[in-house]
């Protein structure tokens, strides 16, 4: 029953990622859908940093999941919207 109720062996899922500022420039686009097995926001950033060569270390970023600030160890769910937030400079 556990297996049939939507818990596949691989935790592969679809995540919407929006990019801003320097991340948008380094990625060359402002959003995309990522297929990933990353369990948390932290794992997802590691994966994308490696893949796209982002310059910012994770400890200089914040993260938002579904338009709320979130902890880096927030578990990711199918279709979550994730935004990595570079050091802000408003005002």
């Amino acid at each position, binding site marked *: 029953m556990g297996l049939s109720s939507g818990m596949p062996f691989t935790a592969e899922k679809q995540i919407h990622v*929006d990019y*801003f*500022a*320097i991340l*948008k*420039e380094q990625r060359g686009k402002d959003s995309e859908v990522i297929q990933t097995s990353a369990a948390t926001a932290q794992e997802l950033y590691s994966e994308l940093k490696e893949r796209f060569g982002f*310059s*910012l*270390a994770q400890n*200089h970023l914040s993260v*938002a999941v579904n*338009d*709320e*600030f979130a902890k880096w160890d927030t578990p990711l769910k199918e279709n979550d919207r994730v*935004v990595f*937030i*570079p*050091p*802000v*400079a*408003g*005002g």
Partner: protein
Amino acid sequence: MFKLSQTDIDINILKASLLDAKAGAYVSFEGWVRDTNDSRHVLQLEYQAYETLALKEGAKILEEAQTRFGINGAACVHRTGSLQIGEIAVWIGVTCEHRQEAFEACRYIIDEIKTRLPIWKKETYTDGSSGWVNCRQHAHAEEINQEVGVS
């Protein structure tokens, strides 16, 4: 009332929304685009916002100011898009019965806006170069770390 605006901030309209016969003090802050930052000559700049979250966070900051300082009213507008030297990047207005709380609340709001609002600023310099403010030194620090082998 917290807003983002792609166009010039019209202060007279915003201020009118705060008029209040119970308020004896009105304190306002404006952030102006300067021609110089860290000794570099700025030509223009661009603000990019994560709008959904910026609107939530901005409203939250105003509510916090209301609760902490017991003010009568507060409003804030932050520009997005391309700005020239001298334009208003952010406007804050606070009304209160007395001036002390009005000053403190206004200062609280701009301090929090600067550290919490998901908005980024890209400066273009007169020498043709450009960069995202606050992102460069961090990126650079990491490059240095990598060069000396710190993981």
